[in-house]
């Protein structure tokens, strides 16, 4: 990994995700800090990244590295945890039954990913699916149901509210919120892909089998 990537690109990407993840666009801009549960999810995600080899913490912080390099590495790690927490907070619905189920959904998926120990590429694909599913659920499905117009949506919401122990209706969101969430998730995934991975060691190129000449 180059010094520029570690000292400039990764902190910029991850801090931007931290900034945008809590941004609530609207008539009045609000910056929401992540709830405690999202910090737990982010820590699980960090563990999954390390376990899969997508992140090698030794390449960010180690006694053999210079102090300046370790400071750069520490900023990347802190920003990674903060960005992860903000992404989870952004993708989790604000209230009601969806808040409960999506939180459980994220937790179970992350624990499953952690236990399954996928390799780097599979973990990144899995992350894209987890975040993509969260994005579609909150900003497409639930946002659609929360539109003030639409008789079908109102009937569905009323039926669901009556049949379960909580409401699925969410506060309507400005159109920009979904686009902002998409950009934030894309930046996070780009940042995760750029993290210093575990180096493959001791793998010799396999000689090709040669057919005997006729």
């Amino acid at each position, binding site marked *: 990994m180059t010094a520029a990537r570690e000292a400039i690109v990764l902190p910029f990407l991850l801090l931007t995700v931290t900034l945008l993840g809590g941004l609530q666009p609207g008539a009045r801009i609000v910056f929401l800090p992540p709830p405690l549960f999202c910090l737990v999810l982010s820590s699980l995600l960090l563990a999954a990244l390390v376990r899969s080899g997508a992140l090698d913490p030794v390449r960010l912080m180690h006694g053999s590295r210079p102090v300046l390099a370790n400071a750069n590495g520490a900023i990347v790690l*802190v920003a990674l945890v903060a960005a992860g927490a903000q992404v989870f907070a952004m993708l989790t619905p604000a209230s009601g039954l969806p808040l409960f189920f999506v939180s459980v959904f994220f937790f179970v998926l992350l624990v499953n990913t952690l236990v399954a120990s996928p390799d780097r590429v599979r973990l990144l694909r899995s992350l894209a699916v987890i975040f993509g599913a969260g994005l579609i659920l909150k900003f497409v499905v639930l946002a659609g149901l929360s539109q003030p117009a639409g008789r079908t949506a109102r009937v569905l919401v009323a039926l669901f509210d009556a049949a379960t122990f909580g409401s699925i209706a969410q506060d309507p969101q400005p159109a920009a919120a979904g686009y902002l969430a998409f950009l934030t998730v894309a930046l996070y995934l780009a940042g995760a892909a750029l993290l210093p991975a575990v180096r493959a060691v001791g793998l010799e190129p396999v000689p090709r089998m040669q057919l005997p000449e006729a």
Partner: protein
Amino acid sequence: MRESVVRSVGLTASLAYGALVLWLYVTQPQTMAQVSGGLTSIIGAYSVDQQAFDDGLRFFRADKFPEARAAFARADRAGRDARTQFYIAYAFYREGWGRTYDDDVLFKQGLTAVDLAIALAPNGRLVVDDPDLQMHSADELRAELQRGLTIELSDFNPLRVLRKRK
């Protein structure tokens, strides 16, 4: 470029960016004017629009309080000037003051403004040297607004109608 230079530049920029992100979450600015005002006040470069402030003062002295507040808000777009916020709070007080009862809504808004003025003032101490005012410190104004919001036995005293607006 040497690696140490890249790392130093990256570290400085990251710390500055991180501090900006943290500042945004702590102060919760709601408009771009508040963001730019907050940032300029950190480096001591923030100033109010003097023309708008003078307009506000003229309206205030003519008992045109909504107009005065609008002008003061224009003068201090970012809400970073303690003196302007003090006048906004005073305008809420004078408009909300009544001989028989005070307007709680306006007094609450005044309390919010004076709290902001106190928070912005150095060491929380704010004294405005204006002969037109009967209360010169933010502490006096705050106490008066709080008294107005509290229901006391003295509120039912008929002689209350003789009191004067400060």
